[in-house]
């Protein structure tokens, strides 16, 4: 069996050796790879053994992975959920088996019996970036295309609605609540008509493309959108990779002066581009921060015996819009 075995080098200060599992939604993009690596790194500092299982974006597989951890009697489970609702039964059965579940990166439904969710707030990140962009653009018209990740993906939905909310809030000067309401309407219009506009805010999205979170698909989607809308002012995106593809598309099309705005992410490459001014902003979504905080909570529960019930529903890492102004400050959180 794999239960016993060698104890990993560090953490020799007499700490009990725990086994933790990390049920990861996917490993097909750098963010998740980093997140897994960081969780392993921090947990191993405590001498724990970490098993990472990857669901490949499939909720059925995610449930299977959770069940595996429960059957193996892990001491604690980290979870990066694919969907907030679908995973609730899995979390609850872990809780029933006495295994605390800490959500990382993705939120889950409120009723789930988890410890807490540690994440960078997609909505707030998007909103902050949107606000920053609205401030930059001032009274000018925004005619944007948006590159979305995968259809049906919740994080993507939160990110783009956040962006819309921030832009509308900044442009119209309305309250945050009001902005969220308008943003949801905007999103609904986009999803039913393929285009959306808020006349008052002089903000319109003229096309949505699906880039599957990757650069190459982002490129392909952006090419068609740029061709159809050569007069666009802005390329919005739900992550950095897709926008890198969009930048290539813009370059190929000879379209210049387009602002590139990511709702959330934080690839080093994006930070570099922000530095030299060719990329407007990205929201801070740092796997390092999430992993650090998550493992810290795990240690409090496992080692210090703190009550898992005592945590708040969510534990947010600081949201931030990273622009030319503050990129140096956050540079080390890139991945």
């Amino acid at each position: 069996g794999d239960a016993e075995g060698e104890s990993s080098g560090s953490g020799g200060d007499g700490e009990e050796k725990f086994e933790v599992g990390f049920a990861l939604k996917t490993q097909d993009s750098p963010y998740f790879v980093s997140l897994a690596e960081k969780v392993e790194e921090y947990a191993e500092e405590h001498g724990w053994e970490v098993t990472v299982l990857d669901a490949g974006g499939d909720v059925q597989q995610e449930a299977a992975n959770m069940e595996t951890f429960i059957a193996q009697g892990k001491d604690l489970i980290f979870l990066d959920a694919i969907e907030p609702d679908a995973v609730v039964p899995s979390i609850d059965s872990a809780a029933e088996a006495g295994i605390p579940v800490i959500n990382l990166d993705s939120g889950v439904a409120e009723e789930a019996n988890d410890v807490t969710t540690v994440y960078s707030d997609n909505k707030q990140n998007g909103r902050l970036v949107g606000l920053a962009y609205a401030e930059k653009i001032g009274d000018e018209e925004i005619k944007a295309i948006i590159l979305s990740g995968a259809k049906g993906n919740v994080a993507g939905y939160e990110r783009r609605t956040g962006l819309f909310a921030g832009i509308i809030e900044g442009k119209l000067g309305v309250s945050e609540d009001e902005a969220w309401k308008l943003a949801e309407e905007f999103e609904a219009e986009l999803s039913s008509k393929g285009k959306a506009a808020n006349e008052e805010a002089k903000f319109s999205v003229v096309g949505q493309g699906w880039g599957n979170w990757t650069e190459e698909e982002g490129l392909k989607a952006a090419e068609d959108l740029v061709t159809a809308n050569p007069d666009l002012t802005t390329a919005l995106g739900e992550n950095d990779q897709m926008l890198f593809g969009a930048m290539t598309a813009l370059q190929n099309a000879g379209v210049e002066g387009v602002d590139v705005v990511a709702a959330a992410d934080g690839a080093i490459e994006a930070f570099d581009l922000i530095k030299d001014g060719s990329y407007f902003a990205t929201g801070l979504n740092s796997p390092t921060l999430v992993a650090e905080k998550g493992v810290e909570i795990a240690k409090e529960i496992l080692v210090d015996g703190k009550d898992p019930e005592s945590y708040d529903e969510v534990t947010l890492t600081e949201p931030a819009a990273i622009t030319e102004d503050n990129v140096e400050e956050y540079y080390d959180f890139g991945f």
Partner: protein
Amino acid sequence: MEATERKIKSMDATRRKFDWKEFIINNNTFIILLLLIIVSAFLSDTFLTTMNLRNILLQQAGPILVAIGLLFVILAGGIDLSVGSIMAVGATVSAILITDMGMHFSMSIGVAVIIGLAFGLFSGILVAYAGIQGFVATLATMTIARGVAFVLTEGRPVKVEAGTISTLVSKDFMYPIIWITILLIIVFTIIHRYTGYGRKVIAIGSNETALKLAGVRTKQYVMSTYALSGALAALAGVFVAARSSTGSATVGMGQELDAIAAVVIGGASLMGGRGFVLNTVAGALILGLIGNIMNLMAVPSYPQDIIKGVIIIAAVLLQILTSKRDRTI
């Protein structure tokens, strides 16, 4: 007539003496499954725990049903790529009916299955009556069904209240989906083996022209296999929704390939006419077990793909080797 008698005698002789070779040939899928179970038990302590076995059954109930539906399509010489997407339709429709329409969950299951059947019927009509190759017709249905699932949910998973559809996986009711699946396995084994319907499906996969000339309206039967496959896929989708209390449009992505692999590992011929329900179930379980044991052993996910591929090849090779008869051109 001497020759005939002689042959019959020699057959009787083999009937008396147990023929090991024949036995292995006829049961190689089950033998592979057994081997895999034994190996898994050695590799991981957790494997043979009740909880893990129950998990496997709960996880594989859906894939098994999908594979059985697909088997009937394949027996009749077709192929169905739409099953994964129809699962999504099943999952989302049942969730929406309960959550947004307030329908009783048992009704919603029925409606979901009927809608899945309708999608299957659509493919079936395209294949049987419009003459489109099954691969293409169901590829189109696959795209359409996925689109429908997304449109229905507007891209956001639909939450279902606890205690409704989740009854299907409730411990208090002895995990209904496991029993439903076992029941359906029995039913479809009988249909395949002991009814005129099953016989006709097999015959169509062997030589549709001959059957037409024997007075069978084969088109209806071809169509019916797709309808059956759609209905079972939708039910499998409902199972997924039940397990997660959520109906999501992303359910079942890629499931079609796993299901086809299950049918083939179960020894069916993709040319039609040959295949068995229980072997298909074993095929689905083999695939499920491979995933389960690699998870238990915490094989990192990237190499998992590689190992899975290699094991599929090994399983099929083993099957071919054990069933090798004489060489002919």
